[in-house]
């Protein structure tokens, strides 16, 4: 056995899934009772308000807290799962929807729909997001899917990110009004604030389809740890596996970004933390990454509400500020372990 004796070593699968689920339940409750200071602070304020004015309290719960919490849950789950699948598919622990340009192209897709539809076609926003992610992920497989070296993959992501940010800048440049420009910036800085249940229902169907597609490749991802050719000789149709993974990522990330904007690094950090707990098996990683993603997203969103600033901090900004140094750290560690 290895001499590693850190907290991160393999645990029974049921324990990992159960533990993370309990964490999600606790964070869900905390998220529902946590508000921004000036409206209703903690649980005490909420109970007080309920006594004085039950109608307002109910309104806050159903219109503000519950949608926000549900969105954080769904988006976190989708991003965690997509990250785990992308890492298995590309056989690269640095793969992540945002780093690889999938999120920014989803944002671009949503911006395009918004731009040409003037916001009236809000139900098309997830579609725009999905199309954006689909194009980016397919491009990524073409550019860096075959060669598994990290550099090619990251460079492909850089190229896609550069392209989408150029096009998003173009949209900003020609924004007809400051209001429209603000709306576009909204998709670049991800947040769960001011969302309604409509957003939840807009994103949920696409995400659910994405989850099914992504889980269907779990076994193939295990086989792919032996290489793509060997996986094919073990009876997997690799074209179909890739198609399902790419479509699933597009559904998940596209829908998530369309309703909350770009939230990066969740798909990078969570699979990385969970992987040792499942014995590094790519297929086994999916469910815990999904639950872990939801937990991280809820925790980050609770965090931004607890930090009191005049303007609410966007959760996408927080994940990027924490995630980017984490990414750098991973890069250094990987460069050291792999020549």
């Amino acid at each position, binding site marked *: *056995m*290895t001499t590693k004796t850190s907290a991160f070593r393999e645990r029974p699968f049921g324990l990992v899934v159960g533990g993370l689920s309990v964490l999600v339940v606790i964070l869900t409750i905390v998220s529902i009772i946590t508000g921004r200071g000036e409206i209703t602070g903690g649980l005490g304020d909420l109970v007080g308000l309920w006594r004085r004015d039950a109608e307002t309290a109910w309104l806050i719960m159903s219109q503000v807290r519950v949608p926000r919490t549900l969105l954080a849950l769904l988006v976190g789950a989708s991003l965690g799962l997509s990250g785990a699948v992308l890492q298995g598919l590309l*056989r690269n622990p640095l793969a992540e929807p945002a780093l690889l340009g999938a999120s920014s192209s989803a944002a671009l897709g949503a911006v395009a729909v918004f731009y040409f539809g003037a916001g009236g076609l809000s139900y098309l926003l997830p579609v725009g997001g999905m199309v954006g992610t689909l194009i980016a992920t397919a491009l990524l497989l073409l550019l860096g899917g075959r060669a598994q070296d990290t550099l090619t993959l990251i460079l492909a992501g850089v190229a896609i990110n550069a392209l989408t940010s150029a096009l998003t800048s173009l949209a900003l440049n020609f924004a007809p009004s400051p209001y429209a420009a603000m709306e576009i910036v909204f998709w670049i800085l991800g947040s769960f604030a001011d969302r309604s249940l409509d957003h939840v229902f807009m994103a949920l169907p696409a995400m659910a389809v994405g989850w099914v597609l992504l889980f*269907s490749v779990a*076994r193939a991802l*295990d*086989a792919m*740890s*032996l*290489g793509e*050719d*060997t996986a*094919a*000789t*073990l*009876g*997997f*149709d690799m074209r179909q596996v890739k198609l399902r993974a790419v479509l699933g990522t597009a559904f998940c990330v596209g829908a998530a970004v369309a309703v909350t904007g770009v939230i990066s690094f969740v798909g990078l950090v969570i699979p990385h933390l969970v*992987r040792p707990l499942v*014995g*590094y*098996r*790519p297929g086994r990683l999916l469910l815990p990454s999904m639950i872990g993603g939801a937990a991280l997203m809820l925790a980050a969103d609770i965090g931004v509400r607890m930090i009191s600033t005049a303007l609410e901090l966007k959760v996408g900004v927080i994940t990027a500020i924490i995630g980017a140094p984490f990414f750098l750290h991973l890069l250094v560690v990987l460069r050291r372990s792999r020549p």
Partner: protein
Amino acid sequence: MSKLSLRDLSVRYGARSVLNGVTLDLAPGSLIGLIGPNGAGKTTLLRACASLIPIAGGECALDGRPLESWDRRARARAIGYLAQEKAALWPVAAGRLVALGRLPHLGPWDSLTPLDESKVSEAMAATDALHLAERPVTELSGGELARVLIARLLAGTPPVLLADEPVSGLDPAHAMQVLTIFRALALEGRTVVVVLHDLMLASRFCDRLVLMNAGAVVADGAPLDVLSPDRLARFYGITADVMPEDGTRVVVPRALAP
């Protein structure tokens, strides 16, 4: 008892023709060594037999039926393939990596049955890798990893085994151990084809050698007949000695051909 029959098989990469009309019968009962200089088309031939690349012309049939007409999973149970690249990516326990060889026998949501577990253990015992079962594959030495990957190939118990350079990077003892295993499997009644670069090992362990050059089979037969001095000079550009050695004789490369 399964056999592969190649009839006039051609493979192209774009406009470049890599295999030109190869006709071969690969049958059980003898360890078949596929040899030839770099770029001769050995790996391509093996990949075509494993259905990894499209065939441009001719046919590759398993037990009389073209490979394309086989169900993907049934074909995976029948033909095992060991890739040339032998790298481990994630630090998975070796036993679990070997268990992946059982995937063609499992439904999408099945877990390993006791039968699967016993096949995994048998395969690991055969390659002297049982004691490595709990070790992360990224921490194994080259020889240990090669034995674990061969155990993965054996765990699926395919009647046809195709191994691309199974002994490259192995020290002499482990190389001989691996070839002994493959030879035993061939004598047991499986069809075993191994790509080899080491002519000494090829002549020592294989019962039949298929020499390829420029996408075609140029010789096929008993090792010492195939490795004649003029062929070694013509296709490999070397001279070699034939050393007598307790009954069998081996070919030992000596120098570049004049």
